[in-house]
């Protein structure tokens, strides 16, 4: 098994990391997106039609953060975040809110996981359907009011201190 996979497995199996990912994601969604997420069993049949955003991060830790939301969630989070009616939301606004959601989730989760780290986040970028979730990835799924959301962190190993 490669060093990268070893480190990813260690992170993914750590209950503290999993708990932080779950808690911080829920806090972000409740506080800024006015939804009430419920941790859900990871059943990923919806992922193939999901809207997904990827962010890379580097510095004291390196890896990728992946956000996927089901199509209904992609449409419903923008009006909640911007405080406007659903029929007033443009496609551009919906995309921008999804990118911002990924940015907030990624930054919040990573800096809570590693408060003493020095991290640089890349720009969030929309990607085609994420496909399957990679094994050895820190991952959680949530049920929101209008559908599903998943967050994943794939570690590429730590740079030397």
């Amino acid at each position: 098994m490669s060093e990268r996979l070893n480190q990813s497995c260690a992170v993914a199996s750590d209950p503290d990391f999993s708990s932080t990912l779950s808690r911080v994601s829920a806090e972000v969604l409740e506080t800024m997106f006015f939804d009430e997420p419920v941790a859900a069993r990871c059943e990923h049949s919806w992922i193939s039609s999901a809207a997904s955003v990827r962010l890379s991060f580097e510095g004291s830790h390196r890896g990728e953060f992946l956000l996927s939301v089901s199509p209904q969630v992609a449409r419903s989070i923008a009006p909640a975040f911007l405080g406007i009616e659903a029929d007033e939301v443009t496609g551009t606004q919906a995309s921008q809110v999804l990118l911002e959601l990924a940015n907030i989730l990624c930054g919040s989760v990573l800096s809570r996981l590693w408060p003493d780290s020095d991290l640089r986040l890349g720009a969030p970028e929309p990607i085609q359907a994420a496909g399957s979730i990679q094994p050895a990835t820190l991952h959680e799924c949530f049920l929101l009011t209008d559908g599903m959301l998943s967050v994943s962190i794939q570690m590429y190993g730590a740079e030397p201190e």
Partner: protein
Amino acid sequence: MGFSVLIVDDSPAMRGFIRRVMTLSGLEVDTCLEASNGEEALERLRQQTVDVILTDINMPKMNGEEFLRRLGSEGLARSIPTLVISTDATKARILRMLSLGAEGYMTKPFSPEALREEMERVLGAKHV
């Protein structure tokens, strides 16, 4: 009497959210200027001053750190308090931004009430 604010963030969605939570929190904003990076923000400030600046860190062209440095070197940091709003809650980052002259540092997620409290502290009661 309300106050004037400059929101500096490369995300139009985040700028919209901040405008929204300022309204929700009951803050009286007379003028709300926006810029998508530090460079744009400096240009706006050369044309019109504001009571407070809210700035992100990760932005293209000129990020929040460089923006704070430039505010200091151009003598604007003393007259306009700056509040950093970022997802980055790492200790090193917070200390670095405060050492560059930021009056406060808010981490996302934040509630309308938290934004109000922090802006009241930064601005002083006369403005809010």
